[in-house]
């Protein structure tokens, strides 16, 4: 994410951006990543770390990934969404490592000429990312107990 600007010059219009990052996701940079050419709708899903879960206060989440397979899977999912729903472009960024309550853990942005495609593609991407991409969440509570995420 911090290297986004170096991947594409403004004249090169990408149709997707996929990344796993260990630093906070820059929401504003991500939201303005794609030029809004032929865009009438932008849908943004922000996955935020809850402050409490299972009636316990959350200290932090530790996300782990199989990095190469995770990025490959995320690319495939975003490609499928672009193909299936006819959206103009899509972005999907997931944090790994330590993430604190109220932080952004995952961001999915879909752009399209009309809202229906963007809504459906965005839901498709986040559902598939949660289900298919080899990323695991360990939820650590303030009493220092922890639980592994149970999937979706």
């Amino acid at each position: 994410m911090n290297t986004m600007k170096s991947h594409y010059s403004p004249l090169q219009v990408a149709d997707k951006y996929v990344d796993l990052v260990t630093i906070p996701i820059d929401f504003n940079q991500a939201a303005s990543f794609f030029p809004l050419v032929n865009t009438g709708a932008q849908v943004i899903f922000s996955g935020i770390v809850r402050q409490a879960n299972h009636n316990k206060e959350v200290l932090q989440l530790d996300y782990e990934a199989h990095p190469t397979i995770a990025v490959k899977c995320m690319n495939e999912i975003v490609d499928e969404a672009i193909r299936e729903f006819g959206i103009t472009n899509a972005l999907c960024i997931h944090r790994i490592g330590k993430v604190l309550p109220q932080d952004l853990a995952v961001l999915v942005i879909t752009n399209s000429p009309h809202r229906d495609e963007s809504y459906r593609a965005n839901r498709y991407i986040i559902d598939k990312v949660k289900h298919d991409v080899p990323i695991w969440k360990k939820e650590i509570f303030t009493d220092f107990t922890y639980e592994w995420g149970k999937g979706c």
Partner: protein
Amino acid sequence: MKIDIQIFGPLKEYFPSTMHMDVEEGIRTDELVEKLIDQSPAARHVLNSSRIAIGDEIIDNHKPIYEYHEISLLPPSSGG
């Protein structure tokens, strides 16, 4: 032959992050899972719902494993 297995997520409750195992050449992935269950029966439920990758490919069917393969055990995802 000796193989290295990378362990991820909740499977780390039962196995170290990297395991070195001595197995027969060409052992199938399902046979490897059975060996791991023998080693740690409490991990059965997670192992039985895990995917296996050889290199960067998640495999769908049981495949033979050779010494040069990098094996990863991927429990059910819980990202997002």
